């Protein structure tokens, strides 16, 4: 055993990343990162959001070139010019957003662009089906090769992607959060297949947030933090301990990123109360996480931080309260009155606001001016009984918010597209302030906002709570949650897994609650 391990150590690694950096317009996304992957091993790539994992994946998959550094794959210099070139070189990346074509069959998807041809250049369907059956059997799929991909579950589609990667003779398969949309049975099936592929000599890079999965399956781990290498962990005789991973992921530097406001808001009465909230899977949004009995209380004048990883159900919780997604069971009360908003319009009418996570697609009107973007949720307030806009009042209000939130803009007519992310976010916050909401839910308040403006946005949120608004802040950045919240709840797989006052919270505690399976050891 030791001899084998020693021999493996001696053989050159399959993939070697040496001192790779990536700079974007003044931002250093990846700073001097080195790692290696050996044949027949599973390497875990871990790190918080923004640690640089996605940037590294983009470089390895050929989507972006590194700014500096060297990559060696299978003994040769590896500089893919495109994702296609990366595939041809033998590295296939499987993203959360699967790349299969839903209307085509499993066989067509596996052989897309390289269908076996028979006489006269006609597709040899029999051979294609036969080979497909063999290929998908390797990943434990026993389905008809003619099944359209749209009829498969997410887990099955993932296996089809892996099968396609195998049939391309990939030597390294990179899997980006493959388990986040799977049920637990599906996860164990996937992990079993990964183990089996490892035994066949395939190298796998496993990017995940799920620490126990990583711990269970990975031979080694590379942890990134703030764009730098935080360290490597090796599996000894037993799985890599989770607390070691958390320590590496969190470090110390991260918590010093934001100053925590010293003055905490005094919470008032309960404004919004959610009990037993459940949702069901929507066929139109199969990737959405199903809420499984969520209870939370939101008090006037406090900021409730909701910490959860991507796929924990935090965004779905916000959307359900806001009437954007259908609620299957449970109650929501606002100031003691039961409410059941059937649409965002209803929720807004009741005094709830939502700053959505995806600013570009869900919040801003890129081709419209700042003025139109500002007042869109409060058109009634800035118009008269005849429906005519009272543009004078509207402009005065915008000017006030411009000052109060220090929005840096040239004129109300300026296109919102020309503003920086931070200033766009301030305009969206002003949009809701114009309605004077009772409850404001802010999903990822500083995504795409530069570091300087982040602190400003945090300050605004604290001020809003001080005005008596019940603020709920959803974020995957723990330092942010710690910086703004008065109270913090953690979510995982559609459930609340913990709650604590912010003063008692640490990144380690929160990370453990967000990333670990709480039901292990529970008696049910």
């Amino acid at each position, binding site marked *: 055993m030791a001899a084998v391990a020693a021999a493996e150590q001696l053989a050159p690694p399959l993939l070697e990343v040496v001192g790779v950096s990536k700079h974007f317009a003044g931002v250093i996304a990846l700073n001097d990162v080195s790692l290696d992957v050996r044949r027949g091993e599973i390497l875990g790539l871990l790190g918080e959001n923004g640690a640089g994992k996605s940037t590294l994946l983009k470089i390895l998959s050929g989507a972006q070139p590194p700014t500096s550094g060297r990559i060696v794959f299978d003994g040769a210099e590896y500089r893919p010019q495109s994702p296609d070139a990366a595939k041809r070189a033998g590295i296939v990346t499987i993203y959360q957003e699967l790349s299969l074509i839903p209307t085509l069959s499993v066989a067509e998807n596996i052989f897309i662009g390289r269908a076996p041809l028979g006489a006269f250049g006609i597709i040899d369907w029999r051979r294609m089906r036969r080979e497909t059956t063999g290929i998908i059997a390797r990943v434990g799929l026993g389905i008809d090769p003619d099944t359209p991909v749209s009829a498969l579950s997410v887990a099955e589609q993932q296996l089809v992607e892996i099968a396609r990667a195998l049939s391309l003779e990939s030597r390294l398969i990179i899997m980006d959060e493959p388990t986040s949309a799977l049920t637990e049975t599906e996860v164990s099936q996937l992990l079993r297949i990964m183990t089996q592929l490892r035994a066949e000599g395939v190298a796998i890079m496993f990017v995940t947030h799920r620490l126990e999965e990583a711990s269970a399956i990975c031979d080694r781990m590379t942890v990134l933090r703030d764009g730098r290498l935080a360290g490597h962990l090796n599996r000894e005789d037993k799985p890599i301990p989770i607390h070691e991973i958390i320590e590496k992921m969190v470090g110390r530097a991260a918590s010093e990123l934001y100053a925590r406001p010293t003055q905490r808001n005094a919470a008032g009465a309960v404004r919004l109360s959610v009990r037993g909230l459940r949702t069901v899977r929507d066929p139109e949004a199969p990737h959405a996480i199903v809420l499984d009995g969520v209870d939370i209380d939101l008090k006037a004048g406090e900021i409730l931080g909701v910490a959860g990883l991507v796929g924990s159900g935090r965004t779905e919780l916000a959307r359900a309260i806001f009437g954007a997604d259908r609620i299957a069971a449970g109650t929501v009360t606002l100031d003691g009155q039961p409410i059941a908003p059937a649409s*965002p319009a209803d929720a807004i009418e009741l005094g709830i606001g939502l700053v959505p996570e995806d600013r570009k697609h869900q919040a*801003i*009107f890129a081709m*419209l001016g700042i003025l139109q973007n500002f007042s*869109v949720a409060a058109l009634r307030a800035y118009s008269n009984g005849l429906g005519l*806009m009272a*543009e004078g009042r509207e402009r005065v209000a915008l000017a006030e918010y411009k000052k109060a939130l220090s929005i*840096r803009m040239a004129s109300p007519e300026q296109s919102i597209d020309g503003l920086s992310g931070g200033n766009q976010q301030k305009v969206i916050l002003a949009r809701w302030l114009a309605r004077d909401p009772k409850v404001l839910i802010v999903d990822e308040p500083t995504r795409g906002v*530069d570091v300087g403006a982040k602190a400003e946005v945090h300050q605004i949120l604290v001020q809003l709570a001080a005005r008596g608004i019940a603020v709920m802040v959803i974020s995957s950045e723990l330092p942010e949650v710690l910086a703004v919240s008065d109270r913090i709840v953690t979510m995982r797989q559609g459930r609340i897994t913990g709650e604590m006052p912010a003063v008692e919270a640490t990144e380690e505690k929160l990370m453990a609650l967000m990333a670990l399976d709480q039901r292990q050891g529970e008696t049910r």
Partner: protein
Amino acid sequence: MTTTTEPAEKKGPNTFGILKRFGPLLFLLALVVVFTALKPSFIDPINVFNILRQISITGLIALGMTFVILTAGIDLSVGSLLAFCGMVAAVVAKGGTANSMSLSAGGGQGFGWFAALLAAVIVGSVAGGVQGLAITRLKVPPFVVTLGGLTIFRGLTLTLSNGGPISGFDASMRWFGTGLVGPVPVPVIIFAVAALLCHLVLRYTRYGRAVYAVGGNAEAARLSGLRVDRILISVYIIVGFFAGLAAFVLSARLNSSEAVAGIGYELTVISAVVIGGTSLFGGIGSVGGTVVGAALIGVLQNGLQFNNVSSYTQSIVIGLILIVAVAFDRWLKSRSRS
């Protein structure tokens, strides 16, 4: 804290800014200058009013189409709907399909011009509303729903009229098509008033803001509390209303409602809106642009005719202009961004 300063708007007139805003208008003026240079009588008031009268029918529909395209929708049914509304107006005006070939007003059995007008705009609005419901409730794309409408309304027209025209309206109705107020033809006045109203609605009302928002980003509009489906239905009602109004004016002008009226109008109408700078992807555009777009097509048709260019060639030129106008618009936008 970083002190990010936003790129301040350029002070003073910006050549590209002006071109971007007034591109189609400048193009229109250039055409007028060219045609006048070729034949000075082109600019005679008689010919100018002639052009304006020619564009007023499709122009009215283009006003409604502007609302639809602003929401990133399309309505291909307007030509057929115009024929159907015209036929309904004729039936109401004449009190039935009898005497359909008589060019006289037909013995006072009809219900008069007002009832005819009301019938045309109500039928148009209802037809538009039904298509809007199909688009929002059944989630069928506007292109498909209104493509269906194009066939359905033509079929309804032929059924109602047995394929033939209904002709002969009384003088009070004909006035809306052929009358003059001073030197100005009545259809031109109707078009001008309607255009002004549409401009005011889009520019200065809550509803107008909502139309731009829904067209600019439907999901963001929904999450901002706008009732997106209602707004979508309303724009199809508006374009249907204008198809009805245009049908009434056209019937009044021709003293006849033809079952084959309005064939191909949808293309002229959409061209006018698009040449006028309204984006087919929604959220960008204006009534002023549409008026200029309609005028541009009218000037081109009339000017080419004036210079004895065959109608076959006219079609080619108008098609080319459509493409050039949109390409020019895109080019300006890419320039002004960089």
